[in-house]
Each structure stands twice: as C-alpha cells, then as structure tokens.
C-alpha cells in the first residue's frame, strides 16, 4: 500500500493540487484535507501548500495557524508526524511555533518569481534524505513575504544544530538572514521552505536545466524522501 500523504486546503490555498500531484508522482497517495477538519484521516505525513491562507490579512499564515486542522497537526508533529510547509505553509508553521523564526515582507518590497538555486544543507530530515549533503538543486521561488528573520541567538542555534535545511545560492531573493531558505525542527520531522518543490516534479513543467528547457525535477526529492521515511519507519 502506498504512503498516504495529506495536503491541506485552506481558503486561499493555491498550490494544493500541485502538491497532491507531486505526492502522486513521487509514488505516494495524496489525501485532500480541509482547514476545518478536526482529524487527519489517518495520513502518515502532511503538506501545507503555498497560497494566501484566509487572505493572509493579519500576517502571512497567522490566521491559518489557529485553524482546527493545524491544531491537530501541531499535536501530531509532536509525536513525529512528518510535516512539510511550502511558502505559505512555511509561514503557517512558523506562526504555529512548530518552526522557529518568522517571515517578513521581501526587503526589496516586490513579489519575486524565478527559478532559484538552493544548497541542501541538511540531508538527514524526513523531507531531504533523498538528497546528498551540499547538493545543489533548482526549484521555483515565488513570494512577497519570504524574508526569514530570527534573533542572532536563534540563528546561531539553528546553524549550530544543523536546523538550516536549505540555503539560497546566488543573490539572496528576499533579504532572508544568513541566506536561509528553509529550516527544520529539532527532531527533523517538520520542514519549512519558501521555494516551491511541487513546481519541479515533472519534465516539461519545471525549471530550465542545461540543454533541456523546463525539465527540472529536483523538487521530487522532498516528496520521495518523506515516502522513504515512512516505508523504512
């Protein structure tokens, strides 16, 4: 039986169907979850997709972090459930205190959309074990509030404990401190990142790679990692 991975849809989610498709292409079984659900339908992992949950009116991800489904996810994450937050999902995980830090408006004050090179700085999490440490990958980035911030003590701790999972390569796209693109919790089961791995999972629809336009599939590694974690658990 394939791994059942939940994808939560909030009012304002945009990339939920893309995330479901990524789960399917990686060999898992996507399970649609709704923001008002009060149970996780027995899924073995959860993805919080990109978008603008509840319009992001208060702060990005703030209202969603108090939703019924996220309360369930916080409890389950404490028991080791693999949870991935992408873009708005990352903002939700920070607002829910499952991940440290916060995301603020891009330092240049503009929405940015481009293919982004990243370094995988921690290949031991539930969502990155299919990568090699230090591997460079390219996946799309699109956000207006992607500046990762935390105080110096927190940043030192994250770097010291290996909780920085992805780092931006090339020019920093949004002013994130120490070029941090993604982080994990201490246990390594909860990961959040601003760029979008679910948009780089199928040839013909991904970022450009050398000699093959729109053929990048580096994002598949995150979903395949979770499935491997579940199969070997």
């Amino acid at each position: 039986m394939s791994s059942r991975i939940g994808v939560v849809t909030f009012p304002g989610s945009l990339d939920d169907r893309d995330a479901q498709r990524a789960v399917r292409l990686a060999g898992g079984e996507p399970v649609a979850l709704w923001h008002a659900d009060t149970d996780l339908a027995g899924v073995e992992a959860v993805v919080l997709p990109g978008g603008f949950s509840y319009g992001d009116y208060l702060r990005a991800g703030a209202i969603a972090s108090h939703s019924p489904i996220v309360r369930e996810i916080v409890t389950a994450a404490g028991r080791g459930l693999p949870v991935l937050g992408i873009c708005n999902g990352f903002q939700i995980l920070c607002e829910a205190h499952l991940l440290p830090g916060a995301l603020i408006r891009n330092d240049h004050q503009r929405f940015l959309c481009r293919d982004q090179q990243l370094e995988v700085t921690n290949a031991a999490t539930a969502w990155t074990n299919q990568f090699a440490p230090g591997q460079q990958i390219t996946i799309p980035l699109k956000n207006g509030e992607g500046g990762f911030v935390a105080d110096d003590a927190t940043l030192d701790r994250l770097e010291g404990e290996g909780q920085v999972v992805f780092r931006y390569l090339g020019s920093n796209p949004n002013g994130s401190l120490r070029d941090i693109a993604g982080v994990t919790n201490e246990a390594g089961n909860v990961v959040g990142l601003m760029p979008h791995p679910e948009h780089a999972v199928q040839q013909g629809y991904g970022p450009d790679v050398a000699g093959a336009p729109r053929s990048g599939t580096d994002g598949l590694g995150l979903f395949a990692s979770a499935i491997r974690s579940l199969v070997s658990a």
Partner: protein
Amino acid sequence: MGYIVVEVMPKQEILDPQGKAVAGALARQGHPFTDVRQGKRFTLAVDGPVTEAHLAAARAAAETTLSNPIIEDVVGIHAVEEDLPADSGAAISAEVTA
C-alpha cells in the same frame, strides 16, 4: 459600546520594508521625515463599557494573535471612551517616528 485600541509595531531591530518604502515616497515629495515605521492599529469593540476583564482579554489576544512576538511589539493597549467613527474598525495606520 466600548472600544479597546491595540497598537502593534515592527520591532526596532527588524527591517520594515513597508515603512522604508513610505519613507522614500515622503522624501521624494520633499518632506523632512528621516524615518518611517509602519504598524497596525486594531479597534476591538465590546458590549457596554470596557472592563478590566475586557482589557485582560485584549492583552491575551494581542500577544497570541494580533502580534507575532518574534517580529512585532505590542506598543499600546487602551480603552477608548468616546464613540468612534463608524468606519474606524481595524484600521491600519502609519506611525512616523523621529
């Protein structure tokens, strides 16, 4: 009906790109302001006059929901005695600092 005003500002050490953009616009118009920080002002309405219990609830809401303590400070929570204009709910205001 009573009102409680909650004011939230980005922490001084946190970059405030919105305030920076507003500061640039004001400077281009010839205004003398050297810095702008942009925050949020929430107006919470309650039935009857504002009580200490209402204020305690407002403080809790301010710390858990209306602000994110990692990036923002709650700089003011106070009851408002007079009637507010009908359109003043949950207004977002810009605060100018010297």
